[in-house]
C-alpha cells in the first residue's frame, strides 16, 4: 500500500496543529459557532444528536494492521469501544469529545491517517473496488490512480469551497463494486481502440434528494490527462454549480440543467487551457505509484476445495463469505459486520484488534473496507480458511450472509444522526429477526437491501434491490419502500411501490415482496432481474392487497 513520504507526514502533522489551533480559538470564544462550523466540517467533525461525530478517512478503503489497531485504540480510549464503517469506506466515531479531537487526529497522524476532507463542500475520500488488485476480472489495479487523485485533491486550493460536497470513485474491472455511477465523478479504467491505457469519465451521478445515474462525459481519456480533466470538471462545477439552494447544489443538478452535451462542451473547452499544464501525469510517476501496490509475496500454491467434507456451517460461510482471488491457492475473505442484533457496519475495539491480528496471520497485514460496510481480508491461503473461520466465528464475525438479504447497508439513522427522520438500525434488526432461516435466505440468492434514515440517502436506498427510506409522518417513523434499484455497472434507481408503512410493518412488507419473487422467478433469475422483467405491479398488488396486522 502507499506509504507516506516526508511531505505527506509533514502535511498531516501541520493539519493537526492547524485544527488544534482552530478548536482552541473556538473554545476560547474567538471563533463563533458558525465560523467554527465551516472549519470543523472540513475535518470530518459534525455536531450530532448526542455528541460530535468524527469521520476518519480510509483512502479507497485500504488499511494496514497497524492502522486498524490505532482505530481500535481510539475507539477504546476516546469513544465507547466501537466504530461504524460507512458506505464510503470510512470510519465514524459517534462519541468523541470536541476538546479531544485534536489528540485523536495526532494519534491518527502517527499511522499515516487523518480526517481531512471527510465532510464539508470539498473533494471527499476517493473510493474504489474493495477487490482491487486481487480480482480475476480486473483490467488494471485502480489503487495507484486513487492515490494520485487523493494527493491531487488534498488541500486543493481552488476546490476547497465548492458549491457542495464532491465524491469520486475509481474502478478497474467490468463489474462495478464501487457504485461509481452514483458518484459526482466515476472514473473507469478502460483501453482505447489500439489498446492504449486510459479512462472513461462519467459525471453527474448522485443519490440524496434527487437520485441520478452518472453520464459519460468522455468515453476515452488518455491516462496522462486524468488530473487535468478532473480539474476541468471541477472548475466548471465550481463556477457554474448553484450556490443559492443547497438542495440543488450538487454537480448532478448542473449536468442535468445544462444537458450532458453542453456540460461536456464546457468541460472540454476548459480542459484545452489545462491539458498540457504541469498536471500531466508522466509514465515515470505512474510506475512509481504502481510500485506501492505491487503484489505481495504470494506462495506457489495449488487451488483447493477446503470446504469438501466439512460441516455445513463452514461450507455456507466459505460459499458466501469468500470470493475468488486471481492467484491460485488464495481466496479473499469477507469479515461480516452484519451480525443479527448488531448495527450494520459496527465493529468493537476488540474485533478491530482481532481483525488486525488475523490480517497479519492470514495475509500480508492488510484489511479493506467494502462499500457494503463489511471488512475484507484480501489474501487468505485456501488451506487456512477453516482455522480462520473458526476464529472469526468465535468473535461474531462469520455471519454467512455476504450478498444476501441480511447483508443490509444501513446508515446510523435517528439513533445517532441529527439529519435522520427515522431509525435505521432497529429496522435492520427487525428484518434480521423476521428472516433468520438461512435455507430461505440462501434460496433467495443474491439480493441487496439498503436502508437510509432520510432523503440524504447515506444508506444508498435508491440503488438497493430493495430500498427502505425513513420518513417522518406526523412525528412517527414510517418507511417508503422501493424495488428494482441496483448500484453496479447496470445501475438503476428503484421504483416506489406505494404508500409508506409504519416500522412494525416493514419486515412483513419485505416478506410479501419476496413471496412474489419466489412464486414468479424463472430458474436462476435474481430478484433484481425478476423485478425488471415483471415491473412493480405484481409486487405492489401483493403488498397492499390485505392489511398488515399492526
Amino acid at each position: 500500500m502507499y506509504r507516506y513520504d516526508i511531505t505527506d507526514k509533514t502535511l498531516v502533522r501541520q493539519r493537526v496543529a492547524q485544527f488544534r489551533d482552530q478548536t482552541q480559538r473556538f473554545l476560547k470564544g474567538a471563533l463563533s459557532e458558525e465560523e467554527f462550523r465551516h472549519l470543523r466540517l472540513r475535518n470530518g467533525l459534525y455536531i450530532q444528536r448526542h455528541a460530535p461525530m468524527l469521520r476518519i478517512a480510509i483512502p479507497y478503503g485500504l488499511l494496514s494492521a497497524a492502522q486498524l489497531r490505532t482505530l481500535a485504540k481510539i475507539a477504546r480510549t476516546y469513544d465507547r469501544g466501537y466504530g461504524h464503517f460507512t458506505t464510503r469506506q470510512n470510519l465514524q466515531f459517534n462519541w468523541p469529545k470536541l476538546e479531544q479531537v485534536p489528540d485523536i487526529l495526532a494519534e491518527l497522524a502517527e499511522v499515516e491517517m487523518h480526517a481531512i476532507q471527510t465532510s464539508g463542500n470539498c473533494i471527499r475520500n476517493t473510493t474504489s473496488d474493495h477487490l482491487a488488485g486481487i480480482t480475476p476480472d480486473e483490467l488494471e489495479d485502480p489503487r495507484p490512480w486513487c492515490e494520485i487523485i487523493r494527493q491531487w485533491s488534498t488541500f486543493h486550493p481552488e476546490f476547497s469551497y465548492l458549491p457542495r460536497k464532491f465524491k469520486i470513485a475509481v474502478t478497474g474491472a467490468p463489474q462495478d463494486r464501487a457504485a461509481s455511477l452514483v458518484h459526482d465523478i466515476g472514473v473507469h479504467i478502460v483501453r482505447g481502440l489500439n489498446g492504449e491505457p486510459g479512462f472513461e469519465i462519467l459525471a453527474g451521478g448522485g443519490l440524496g434528494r434527487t437520485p441520478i445515474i452518472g453520464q459519460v462525459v468522455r468515453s476515452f481519456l488518455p491516462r496522462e490527462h486524468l488530473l487535468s480533466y478532473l480539474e476541468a470538471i471541477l472548475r466548471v462545477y465550481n463556477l457554474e454549480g448553484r450556490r443559492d439552494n443547497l438542495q440543488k447544489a450538487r454537480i448532478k443538478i448542473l449536468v442535468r440543467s445544462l444537458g450532458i452535451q453542453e456540460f461536456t462542451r464546457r468541460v472540454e473547452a476548459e480542459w484545452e487551457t489545462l491539458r498540457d499544464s504541469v498536471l500531466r501525469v508522466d509514465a515515470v510517476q505512474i510506475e512509481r505509484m504502481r510500485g506501492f501496490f505491487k503484489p505481495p509475496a504470494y506462495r506457489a500454491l495449488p487451488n483447493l476445495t477446503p470446504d469438501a467434507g466439512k460441516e455445513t456451517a463452514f461450507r455456507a460461510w466459505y460459499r458466501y463469505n469468500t470470493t475468488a482471488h486471481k492467484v491460485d491457492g488464495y481466496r479473499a475473505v469477507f469479515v461480516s459486520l452484519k451480525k443479527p442484533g448488531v448495527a450494520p457496519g459496527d465493529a468493537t475495539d476488540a474485533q478491530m484488534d482481532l481483525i488486525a491480528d488475523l490480517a497479519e496471520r492470514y495475509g500480508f497485514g492488510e484489511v479493506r473496507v467494502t462499500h457494503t460496510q463489511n471488512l475484507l481480508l484480501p489474501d487468505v491461503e485456501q488451506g487456512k480458511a477453516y482455522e480462520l473461520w473458526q476464529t472469526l466465528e468465535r468473535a461474531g464475525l462469520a455471519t454467512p450472509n455476504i450478498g444476501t438479504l441480511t447483508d443490509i447497508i444501513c446508515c446510523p439513522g435517528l439513533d445517532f444522526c441529527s439529519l435522520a427522520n427515522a431509525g435505521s438500525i432497529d429496522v435492520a434488526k427487525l428484518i434480521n429477526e423476521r428472516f433468520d432461516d438461512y435455507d430461505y435466505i440462501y434460496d433467495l440468492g443474491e439480493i441487496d437491501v439498503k436502508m437510509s434514515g432520510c432523503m440524504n440517502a447515506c444508506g444508498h436506498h435508491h440503488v438497493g434491490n430493495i430500498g427502505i427510506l425513513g420518513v417522518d409522518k406526523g412525528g412517527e417513523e414510517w418507511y417508503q419502500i422501493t424495488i428494482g434499484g441496483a448500484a453496479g455497472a447496470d445501475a438503476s434507481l428503484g421504483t416506489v411501490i406505494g404508500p409508506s408503512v409504519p416500522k412494525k410493518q416493514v419486515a412483513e412488507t419485505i416478506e410479501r415482496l419476496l413471496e412474489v419473487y419466489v412464486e414468479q422467478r424463472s430458474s436462476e433469475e435474481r430478484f433484481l432481474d425478476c423485478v425488471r422483467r415483471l415491473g412493480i405491479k405484481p409486487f405492489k398488488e401483493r403488498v397492499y392487497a390485505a392489511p398488515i396486522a399492526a
Partner: protein
Amino acid sequence: MQRRLLRDGQIVLDDWRYVAEAAADPSAPLIVTLDQWRLESDTWLARGSPLGVVLSPEHHAEQLAPDLAHFALIAAQFPGPSEGRGYTQARQLREHWNFKGELRATGYVRRDQLFFMARCGFNSFELPETDIEDAYSAFSTFTAAYQPSNDLGLPHKLRAVSSAVTAYRAQE
C-alpha cells in the same frame, strides 16, 4: 480610519480607494465595479490614477480580459464563508490571462482561508481588524503542498510535491 490590509506578507495602509471613499482623495488609485467601468470607462481613465476593478463571484474572469491592461488591481469578492468562485477566478486571471497586478480578496476573508487564497494567486487580503495581526501566521501553517500554484502572496514559494505532479518539481 484608513484601512489596513495584508499585502505581499506585510500589514500596510491601503493606498487604494473604492468609489464611495474617493471624494476626499481625488488623486488616489481608484477601485470601480465592473458595471461602473463599463458605463463610464472614459471618465475613470481621464482621472489619470491607477485603476482597479471589483470582480463579483458571478462574473467570469474572461469578461475582464479585453480591458485587463487598464487595471493594476482586481478585487475578487467573497460574500460569505462558503463562497468559492473567487479561487477559480484568481487562478484563471493569473494562469490564463497572465494578470500581474495586485489580486485582492475582499468580503468574508479570514485567516483560515488565506493559505488557499494565496496558493490560487491572491497577494492582498482585506481582513477584519481583529484578525489582521494574527493572520500572517496562516501563511506558514503548511510548508508543503500537493498542487502546483501561483503563490504570489506567500512569503516562501511552495512547489507541488505530489508524486503525481512532479513534472513541476522537476522544473526547479
